[in-house]
């Protein structure tokens, strides 16, 4: 095999800044709860990156199983941060599978990233300035674009991942039709049950994630289902929609706040390294939560006619619109989506090796 040292340089742009320090001792593999009898994870993926095995990396499913418990990084004698390498691999793979090309710009450290952030800001300002009149209805229409965009982008992901992880290495279209496998895939999707495999379950991390995720999903539902019409109706503080909004807003603020503090104080292995995209994510999320809360507070306290309310609501809608564009490349979010897929593809690979897979 021809050595390709360019690959590791490329992966390093996605955040694995220290991985060249690895000298293949295998300590990471010894402590990794995911490592099986063949003792290959994460050791072999690191080596494959070093020598430039592009196909092996492109078809790797293991990074999606990793929850970044950080045992490997804590044990690494060379401080090569294997945990962060897995994170970078996930970003690299997302960029590889992404049909929009946005992820690549977003994750690679460099001037494009700065331009993207600045562009977002400009776009945000333009939206804010141009939403006039009955922008609530306009916002509703724009939000309609969201499911379409997400479906197209995610569809691209699934197809590309399938192509790289299954079709290319196995040389054909293969599938597993075993109900048990499909069931397990769904279970993983909903419960993220492999997290229990990590030796020290980080309860704070788990709770913060839960708060942010549930708050965030609620926010999307509220916007997309157009549950909220703050300029038309006056809501009571304990109205059912109000309760949803309070939960969603505080969930994002508290959960996001905890996660940001952990990043600032680097309290766990998984929060030691912050990629610029992490901060962009956290800040935008914060703004969504804060503007949503503030909008609703003004409505509850002063009624729909309050002049400040219209401005804040406009701000809220503008941020959420910008956000739509960014939603797809975020690993944090996409995790939930890729992990069960990885579980399923693993089954397909195994079945294909055993000759029992469905094939075309």
């Amino acid at each position, binding site marked *: *095999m*021809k*050595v390709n*040292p360019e690959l*590791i*340089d490329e992966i390093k742009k996605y955040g694995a800044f*220290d991985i*060249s*320090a*690895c*000298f*293949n001792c295998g300590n990471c593999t010894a402590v990794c709860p995911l490592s099986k009898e063949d003792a290959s994870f994460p050791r*072999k993926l690191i*080596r*494959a990156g*070093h*020598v430039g095995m592009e196909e092996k990396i492109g078809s790797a499913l293991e990074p999606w199983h990793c929850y970044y418990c950080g045992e490997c990084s804590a044990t690494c004698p*060379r401080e090569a941060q294997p945990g962060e390498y897995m994170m970078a691999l996930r970003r690299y793979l997302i960029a590889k599978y992404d049909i929009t090309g946005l992820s690549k710009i977003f994750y690679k450290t460099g001037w494009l990233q700065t331009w993207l952030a600045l562009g977002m800001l400009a776009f945000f300002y333009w939206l804010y300035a141009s939403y006039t009149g009955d922008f609530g209805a306009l916002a509703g229409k724009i939000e309609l674009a969201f499911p379409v965009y997400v479906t197209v982008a995610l569809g691209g992901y699934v197809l590309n991942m399938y192509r790289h992880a299954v079709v290319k290495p196995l040389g054909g279209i293969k599938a597993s039709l075993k109900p048990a496998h499909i069931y397990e895939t769904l279970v993983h999707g909903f419960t993220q049950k492999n997290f229990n495999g990590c030796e020290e379950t980080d309860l704070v991390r788990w709770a913060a994630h839960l708060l942010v995720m549930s708050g965030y999903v609620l926010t999307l539902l509220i916007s997309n289902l157009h549950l909220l019409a703050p300029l038309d109706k006056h809501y009571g503080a304990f109205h059912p929609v109000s309760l949803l909004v309070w939960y969603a807003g505080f969930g994002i603020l508290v959960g996001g706040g905890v996660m940001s503090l952990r990043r600032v104080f680097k309290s766990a292995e998984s929060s030691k390294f912050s990629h610029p995209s992490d901060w962009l994510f956290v800040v935008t999320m914060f703004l969504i939560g804060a503007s949503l809360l503030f909008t609703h507070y003004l409505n509850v306290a002063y009624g729909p006619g309050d002049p400040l309310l219209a401005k804040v609501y406009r701000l809220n809608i503008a941020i959420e619109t910008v956000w739509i564009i960014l939603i797809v490349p975020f690993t944090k979010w996409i995790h939930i989506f890729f992990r069960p897929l990885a579980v399923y593809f693993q089954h397909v690979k195994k079945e294909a090796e055993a000759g029992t897979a469905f094939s075309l």
Partner: protein
Amino acid sequence: MDEKITEAASKDNYRQEPKVGVYVCHCGGNISDIIDVKAVAAALAKYPGVAVAREYAFMCSSNGQDLITKDIKELGINRTVVAACSPSLHELTFRGVLQRAGVNPYLHEHINIREQASWVHKADHDGATAKAIKLAQAGVEKVLRKDALNAIRVAAEQRVAVIGGGVAGMRAALSAAGKGLEAVIIEKAPRLGGRLLELGKMYPSGEEGPAVAKKLEDLVLAEPKITVHTGAEIDFVSGFVGNFKVNFKKPDGSSQQVKAGALVMATGYEHYKPAKGEFGYGEDGNVLTLPEFISLMKKLPAGRLEYGGREIKSLALIHCVGSRQVEGVHKPQADGKINDYCSRVCCTSALYAANQLKEKYPGVRVYDVYRDIRTYGMQHEDYYDKASKDGVLFMRHNETDQPVVVSDRTGHTVKVKDVLTWGEELEFKADLVVLVTGMMPADISLIRSQMKLPASADRFLQEVHPKLRPVELANSGVFVAGAAQYPMDVTEAMASAGTAAAKAAILLAEPDIPLEPFVAVVDEHKCTGCGLCPPECSYDGALMMTEKNGKKLAVVNPALCKGCGACVAVCPVRAINVAGWTLDQFDAMVEAIAKE
């Protein structure tokens, strides 16, 4: 013989009535838990020739020693047998007791009833006791036949001859001069400095090799006690401790002789020279050894790495070239041996060179092909660490799967069966291949054969004991400094040279050198001059045939004799004995032990 040697193992002619004191040690239970020490003392007290026999908890303690002193003073004891631990532990202790009490220290016999009786016969108390009695009785028989010996004293030249003027030689000369000795450096090259002169930046301080050489050279030249001969070609080295003679030719063709009390061998190393075609070396391609590459890098400005007019964008380092060679895989050297030893310092110097390379030419791709990385020294691991972090790609092969370099018009393709990539054969292009060559000892075969200096299987000079006597050769008065002993870096060579100089200074601290009197002694009346013994002698010049009053005779040079006894064994008429270990003594011991 023009050297002054005082009183070789001469016999003490006045003989007092022998009065033997026997002292049985308990060794704090080590002996007395198994052996009935009271019974041993009682049995010995009755033995012919024994004036007194005692037992005590710790004979080596000051109370135990006082016991012997008191008996010497009050009972007139003039020979002692101590039945205790191994003589290697405390024989010198008791010789000291005798000497302080005014008795010849060699009239002592140390019997080992701990290692040879109590420890090995734990289950058989009676048997151990009986054996201890026999051993002690044999000791009495021996000590009764002992002569009062005197240490041999050899007048010594107060001068150290240092062979080799590299870093180790200069350091050794400076240290010896610092101790007040004269030092003479004899260097074959036209100037001092040795291998330092060809080096670039050196770890760990980052100083340039030639700069360090210059510093040492300035100190050496400023030191009035040091004489330097450069361009000197040694043609004959002879002599023995205290009286070595080094003969050499000066650059003008004239001969000179240096006399010295001690010799420091600071003869250094040679770089391994790859065979023609070994990884493409010596053919048209861009294949260099690490020393050659270091010289190249020294000359080039930063920014663009160039060799043979072409820019070098990728470079392969191949470790263990000429080191850790494998039987059946590597071609043997001229002497038929392979270099199966590790040259120790090459891993670190290769990595340090890679660090510098990455600093000076960050764009160059560096591939490092190794079998094992042995960055053994202080901070050496940091260079390995840094090389990895700088993106040097390491590939590791097995001893039997050597990397292959294929050269063509476009450059070199290196193929490695990489165990880190689960045995996959990796290949990459390299504009320049650098062979990390090992060290071989400098060719000092002339001095080695003239002086019979011991060498290890790796052909480097070999010390007496790696831990206990690390810079002394078996030849008394000859010390080794630096990489003549084994591959070492500058830091280690400095330390070793300082040690060698200190050892030489201890040896020459007094105007004459005391030597153990246990050397061969020829009975001139018995010797028939048959000439059987000199061929058995392993120490050049220690035993020779001569003529005295028309009679052929064997004569011993006590300064060279090691007392091995090889000559004793071949003498058909029992004319040779080793002082302190005579045949009569052995006969009597055997008889005492065998007696019913």
